[in-house]
């Protein structure tokens, strides 16, 4: 079946290779598609159809071919008439059992009536209890290939952004001419074509076309400013003018999604040839004229031995000439323009004969049809353009284009090669001008669709949608059942909903429905085109897995020392180093250090800082002295607790504000929002410093000893540096450190904010210097236990999006006598309102039981009276402890409440006198 060298062939005969098809080796040449290589080897059946499992072969011999979807090296649903063969490639038919040749699922044909139009709305409905069994059986008949196993290589998928002045979708002669003209005007052009090389129909045309193609390609290659993306497809236009291009065939890359934002889009998608709808039109051996011309001229494949050609245009005639040149016995050319017709294709596994309209029967193995063209207007209508049916040309044509979009080539109309190129050039110049470049203002010449007979469906029932197995009869039945809208017919029959998405079948569907309803094609209208224009893999949509990760300067140390990682937002933190309870004991008994770098930190500068703090915190700030620290709580306007943290005054007009790790970003925005939009006259600058400092909390009764060994210039005595104070100095030889005396763990502790580049140095110095003190690192889990023992709430853990400050037990902090602060009106209301839940300390009666967080507190069977917000086993108390919200009538110390656990158990817990379970007097903290 392989022909001698063809002038335009794209196969490389010097590079033979072997691949397998259903396990058997096959020869091919580099440049072959899977379909062309198999066709060259004499294969005619490549797949089975969706419902009836009818054998299917090549129809279009390009990426739109509905008969050549295959599985390649585990990748399902590969367009085999488009994908290039590579050495060792393993190709299999998909969805067949036990084999492509003997597919038992073809027995579906016997169940034809049960699989009629809309069968899935009518069958397998009752009895409902059997649905799980129906589902199990139906799943075996689902179309498509097998999803690769999770262990299969995933391939590499990427995204890329592009901003061309002009994006030309379609690399035929008009598209190339448009790109050239735009580039000549200085525009940056992206030229996209779905074939492996530019040229469109010129690639499989005659010598004149090939000569012109060579010139155009050379001009494109020589032109500056044209980026050519072959083997790529524009899949749609989205909001904001985003044009998606999926790029294939790049070395080392499975697919790339290019997110382009062109200033002008030029649609030059050419034309798509339509099949003819008659009985037997899906048999292997029925091909479009463009298919046989591709096979012969691009791949040097003789598509059959004896052919009948049914044509309504010159392209069919040219195909007949190509066939004859390729040694095919062209038994008859039936010309519709002369009144000729064909009625039926005979055969079982392939074409055996064609019944002609005059009653004659011609034996053959190949039927070539050339009955008309579809202008792929989908991309234009996605952009807001419109298309209308032109009966004289038997196709839809663009009628309105939105700003930013132009069209050229066959999509617009027909003409000689010179006319197509001339139109493309004028459109390219117009696009360049619209993109702000200087180009000649040549008028765009008319490109009028050529007259063409309206040939859609013949006299017999045939397949309209090959991928969905929808026939003329199915469409007629849908109309008969009352589905007379084309949109409803589409959804009811699934016509145009398969992988080809209407490219081949939409106009035939419309024509058949129009005939069935008695309306014309214009009145019937079209379905709505939506992206994607061509199938897009999930991998292309996903791209690379870029998930931002934040690491502290001590991250590698934590990893090297066996820390279990904890994902906290984007931060990776050490959850523990193997023994969180031991870490807690080390802090309570000696000294521990924890990496708290994610703590939000903001340096504030300016004379109005006290005003800002007074406004955004519920408590007071005006009298905060230099060197002093205060805890503060922020609320939103609705009085809900938003964030908390300590702020220290480092100088006259210099403060360091801290926020929770999880709330740091929001607090930064909150500060800026108030300064920029509400108090723009205040002189305060906010400088984010979260990442500028590595933060280390040194906690435990021996923390002072440890810190003293490393600090210079700071008097650490309790008198000189009491609780809630801050100092600047040198730690481990590192200048410009901020040393806080604060305590989230309930122990004597110091928090060191060290210039981040020196964080690891100070961390290691603390560990090395404190060996004799028993210093050890502790992680987030130990910190959570320690703070729970101390009864410190965590915003977001012990509060939620509804927790107002009084409910969180923050009465002591709220200063309602301040003139104003954010949330004050709402808190004033909450203060006098009854029934607010209260945060309390809880201890389960069973000291071994740690109630899962979010366990409900209940009263009787129906009333929910609160919930557990935090719970842990306390190594210090050797019992379980918790915090939780309870109804106010149950908040009295000593009250026994009932916990409803997720497993249904109801167990008692006692309300404690205060939130702190350990050292409620704060002696350790102030030690």
């Amino acid at each position, binding site marked *: 079946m392989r022909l001698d060298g063809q002038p335009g062939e794209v196969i490389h005969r010097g590079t033979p290779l072997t691949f397998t098809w259903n396990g058997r080796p096959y020869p091919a040449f580099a440049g072959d598609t899977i379909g062309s290589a198999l066709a060259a080897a004499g294969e005619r059946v490549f797949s089975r159809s969706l419902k009836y499992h009818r054998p299917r072969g090549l129809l279009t011999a390009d990426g739109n071919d509905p008969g050549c979807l295959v599985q390649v090296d585990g990748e399902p649903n590969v367009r085999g008439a488009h994908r290039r063969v590579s050495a060792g490639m393993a190709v299999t038919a998909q969805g067949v059992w036990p084999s492509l040749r003997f597919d038992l699922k073809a027995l579906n044909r016997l169940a034809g009536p049960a699989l009629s139009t809309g069968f899935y709305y009518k069958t397998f409905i009752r009895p409902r209890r059997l649905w799980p069994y129906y589902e199990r059986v139906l799943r075996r008949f689902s179309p498509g290939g097998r999803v690769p196993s999770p262990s299969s290589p995933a391939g590499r998928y990427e995204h890329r952004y592009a901003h061309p002045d002009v994006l030309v979708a379609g690399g035929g002669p008009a598209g190339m001419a448009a790109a050239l003209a735009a580039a000549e005007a200085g525009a940056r052009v992206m030229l996209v074509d779905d074939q492996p090389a530019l040229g469109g129909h010129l690639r499989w045309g005659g010598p004149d076309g090939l000569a012109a193609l060579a010139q155009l390609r050379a001009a494109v290659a020589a032109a500056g400013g044209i980026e050519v993306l072959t083997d790529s497809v524009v899949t749609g236009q989205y909001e904001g003018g985003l044009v998606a291009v999926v790029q294939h065939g790049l070395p080392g890359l499975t697919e790339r999604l290019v997110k382009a934002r062109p200033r002008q889009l030029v649609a030059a998608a050419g034309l798509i040839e339509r099949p003819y709808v008659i009985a037997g039109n899906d048999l292997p051996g029925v091909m479009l004229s463009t298919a046989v011309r591709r096979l012969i001229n691009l791949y040097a494949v003789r598509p059959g031995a004896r052919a009948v050609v049914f044509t309504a245009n010159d392209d069919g005639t040219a195909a007949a000439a190509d066939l004859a040149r390729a040694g095919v016995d062209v038994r008859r050319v039936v010309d519709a323009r002369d009144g000729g017709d064909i009625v039926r294709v005979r055969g079982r596994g392939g074409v055996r004969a064609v019944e002609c309209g005059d009653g004659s029967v011609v034996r053959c193995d190949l039927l070539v049809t050339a009955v008309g063209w579809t202008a792929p207007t989908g991309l234009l209508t996605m952009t807001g353009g419109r298309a209308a049916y032109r009966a004289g040309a038997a196709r839809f044509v663009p009628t309105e284009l939105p700003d930013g979009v132009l069209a050229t080539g066959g999509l617009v109309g027909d003409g000689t090669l010179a006319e197509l190129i001339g139109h493309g050039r004028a459109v390219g110049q117009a696009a360049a001008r619209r993109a702000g470049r200087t180009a000649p203002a040549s008028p765009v010449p008319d490109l009028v669709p050529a007259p063409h007979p309206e040939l859609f469906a013949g006299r017999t029932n045939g397949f309209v949608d090959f991928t969905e197995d929808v026939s003329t009869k199915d469409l007629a039945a849908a109309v008969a059942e009352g589905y007379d809208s084309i949109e409803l017919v589409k959804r009811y029959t699934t016509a145009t909903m398969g992988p080809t998405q209407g490219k081949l079948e939409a106009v035939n569907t419309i024509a058949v429905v129009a005939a069935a309803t008695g309306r014309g094609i214009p009145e019937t209208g079209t379905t709505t085109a939506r992206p994607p224009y061509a199938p897009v893999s999930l991998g292309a949509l996903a791209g690379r897995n870029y998930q931002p990760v934040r690491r502290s300067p001590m991250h590698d140390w934590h990893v090297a020392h066996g820390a279990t990682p904890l994902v906290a937002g984007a931060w990776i933190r050490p959850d523990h180093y193997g023994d969180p309870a031991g870490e807690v004991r080390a802090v309570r008994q000696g000294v521990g250090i924890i990496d708290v*770098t994610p703590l939000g930190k903001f340096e504030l500068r300016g004379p109005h800082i006290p005003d800002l703090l007074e406004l955004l915190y519920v408590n007071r700030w005006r009298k905060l002295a230099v060197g002093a620290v205060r805890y503060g709580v922020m609320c939103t306007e609705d009085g809900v607790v938003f964030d908390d943290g300590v702020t220290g005054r480092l100088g006259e007009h210099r403060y360091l504000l801290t926020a929770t790790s999880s709330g740091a970003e929001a607090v930064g925005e909150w500060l800026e929002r108030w300064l920029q939009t509400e108090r723009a006259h205040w002189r305060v600058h906010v400088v984010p410093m979260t990442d500028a400092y590595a933060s280390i909390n040194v906690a435990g009764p021996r923390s002072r000893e440890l810190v003293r060994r490393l600090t210079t210039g700071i008097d650490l005595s309790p008198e000189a540096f009491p609780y809630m104070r801050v100092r600047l100095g040198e730690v481990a030889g590192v200048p410009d450190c901020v040393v806080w005396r604060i305590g989230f763990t309930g122990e004597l502790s110091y928090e060191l904010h060290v210039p981040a580049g020196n964080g690891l140095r100070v961390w290691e110095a603390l560990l090395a210097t404190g060996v004799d003190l028993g210093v050890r690192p502790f992680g987030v889990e130990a910190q959570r236990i320690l703070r729970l023992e101390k009864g410190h709430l965590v915003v977001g853990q012990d509060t939620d999006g509804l927790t107002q400050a009084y409910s969180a037990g923050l009465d002591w902090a709220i200063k309602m006598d301040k003139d104003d602060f954010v949330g004050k009106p709402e808190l004033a209301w909450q203060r006098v309102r009854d029934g607010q839940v209260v945060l309390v300390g809880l201890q389960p009666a069973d000291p071994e039981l740690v109630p899962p967080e979010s366990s409900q507190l209940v009263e009787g069977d129906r009333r929910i009276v609160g919930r557990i917000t935090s719970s842990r086993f306390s190594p210090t108390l050797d019992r379980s402890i918790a915090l939780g919200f309870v109804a106010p009538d149950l908040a009295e110390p000593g009250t026994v409440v009932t916990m409803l656990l997720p497993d249904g158990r109801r167990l008692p817990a006692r309300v404690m006198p205060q939130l702190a379970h350990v050292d409620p007097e704060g002696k350790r903290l102030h030690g």
Partner: protein
Amino acid sequence: MAEVSVEVSATDCTDLAKVLVRADPGGALAAALDVPFGRAVRDGNDALVVRTAPDAWLLLAAADLATPLVRRVEALGAGEFASVVDVTHGHALARLTGTTAAVVLAKLCAIDLADPATPDGNTFRSLVAGVAVTVVRDDARPGRLTAGSAGATPAGGRDARPGRLTVSPTASLASLDRSDALGSAGATPAGGRDAERERSYLLLCDRSYRQYLRDVLTDAGEEFGLAWT
């Protein structure tokens, strides 16, 4: 014509001094800095001044110059409300240089990187692989990087043949400790070969994303053989 590197390379410049300035856009300090919003200009002394917001500037200089830089800028703004803060430790900084630098960056950043939109000296803040990054187009100039110019001996014993224009980012890294790490304002490239500038971007993000930024640049640059120098 001098040899120009065609491969893309990246350099971690995190150690460069970084000073944040906040001041009234209509004040004396703004006038003294004299850099329009969205532009980056060498200040004629030892710093690249990047105006990141109408009222904010980021100054980049050699690693040991943060303190004198702070003092110098504070003096410029004496008498007006301004904040000059050493944020050296708060940010990671990488330089991406080479003929395909923009193509690599275009895999990570949605901004138009072509000359008309982002010419040399342009700066913007956008997401790069999901992280907020200040991007500065700061093309490498042959004159600045040619061996024989002040302090141009690259660190690590790398090739530094006279006239060689390669490894501009590495040269930047190598010169982190030099006062001319970022070149001089208005410095005329050696031989006036302005056209031979090699495309280069400075990428500045929160320091905690330093490794992540390195990872994504490495991944995006793989097809172009991106190497860290």
